[in-house]
């Protein structure tokens, strides 16, 4: 196994007395496409900024390409692409100028690919950046970040300002990049349906902690909802091991479990003389189950 591209241990970040990230342990393997999801204010952008050395961690450790992101070498920076949530580019430049300007910084710049992306996202070369809409700016920033095919691509809410057409175009470009080489992608989003197509891994950030990090398929295989119909009324202390959430009344219960194993269903059937139906959950449902208060 190669070393993880991103690795953190006990990462903590506070702003004054407010702790935003706590005890974050995250290991992103090379080639993974990680979807980072969390509610508003869960710390997604702060985590991304700490990982990239744009914010200084309070304590713990972070490694990016095996280096400390706060003192990242020039060569590591050239292998890294980042699109922030709010894109700021020189307003006086035209599209063709910013493309030429940015290309000068990267040895790996692929001019043909840049042109393809500009066409695909309908960004006219002669448009000035100043009056562009947030969606157009985001598309332009994506072109700039994708054109040198960075080994690690970090995207903070990349599709937030995009219309459905542009979102699809973006996803297929992302898939195209992931196909050609060993690229690692980390992107935050709260649109779970986009994530389900492209992501290989899922990270859920809740209250400043990573509460779940695993392969997306494994998550869908493990997190399930059980509908239990018992022979008799369930007692007040009814509980299922490993339950994320449970609701019950009379002889019926609905329980979401984080790690369904073969034994659990049998145990429940035996203990409560119950019928147990196992329901698959999609990402949105899993996300909601994990956030149920």
């Amino acid at each position, binding site marked *: 196994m190669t070393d993880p591209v991103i690795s953190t241990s006990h990462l903590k970040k506070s702003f004054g007395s407010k702790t935003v990230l706590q005890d974050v342990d995250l290991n992103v393997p090379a080639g993974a496409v990680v979807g980072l999801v969390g509610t508003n204010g869960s710390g997604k952008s702060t985590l991304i900024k700490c990982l990239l050395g744009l914010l200084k961690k309070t304590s713990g450790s972070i490694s990016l390409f095996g280096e400390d992101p706060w003192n990242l070498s020039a060569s590591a920076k050239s292998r890294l692409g980042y699109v922030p949530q709010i894109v700021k580019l020189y307003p006086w430049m035209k599209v063709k100028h910013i493309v030429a300007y940015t290309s000068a910084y990267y040895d790996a710049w692929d001019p043909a690919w840049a042109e393809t992306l500009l066409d695909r996202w309908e960004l006219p070369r002669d448009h000035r950046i100043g009056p562009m809409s947030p969606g157009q700016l985001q598309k332009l920033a994506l072109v700039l970040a994708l054109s040198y095919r960075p080994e690690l691509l970090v995207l903070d809410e990349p599709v937030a300002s995009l219309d459905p057409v542009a979102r699809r175009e973006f996803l297929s470009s992302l*898939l195209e990049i992931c*196909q050609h080489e060993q690229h690692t992608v980390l992107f935050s989003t709260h649109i779970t349906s986009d994530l389900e*197509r492209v*992501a290989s891994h899922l990270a859920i950030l809740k209250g400043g902690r990573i509460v779940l990090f695993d392969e997306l*398929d494994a998550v*869908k295989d493990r997190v399930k909802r059980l509908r239990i119909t018992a022979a008799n009324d369930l007692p007040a202390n009814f509980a299922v091991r490993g339950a994320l959430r449970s609701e019950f009344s009379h002889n019926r219960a609905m329980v979401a479990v984080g790690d369904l194993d073969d034994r659990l269903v049998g145990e429940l059937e035996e203990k409560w003389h119950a019928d147990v139906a196992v329901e698959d959950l999609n990402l*949105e*449902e899993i996300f909601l189950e994990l956030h149920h208060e």
Partner: protein
Amino acid sequence: MQPTSLEFAVQPTSGVPIYRQLMDQIRALVASGRLKPGDRLPSVRQMAADLQVNMMTVSKAYAKLESDGLLERERGLGMRVPVGASHEGTATTMAPVGERQQELRPFAEELATRAWQLNLTDDQALAVVRSVLKGRKS
């Protein structure tokens, strides 16, 4: 039949992981004899691009089916249904009609519910099914 990616359809927002959906569909194609020994599947890259999913998802489905013995890897050519090997699902041991109909049942139940909601008669609903089936053949 040399299947193209058009023969497959995945629901990314389903609770069933995409690789499992693909495995189920390939199993069904083999079990029914639609895919015969020697038939080749689309390349991982082609399938991923057409279905707009991650390549890893497709290669995972293929790899699992390979280790189950349902597919074999042909050097440089991709995946195919094994030739000669007598395994569950080849034309000679095709799953019985009853079993394959059972597979179809959940979809029919969904269809029946929606037909009822739309207040369609049995004949009217069946006419839709027939026209869809006919469309696939042409």
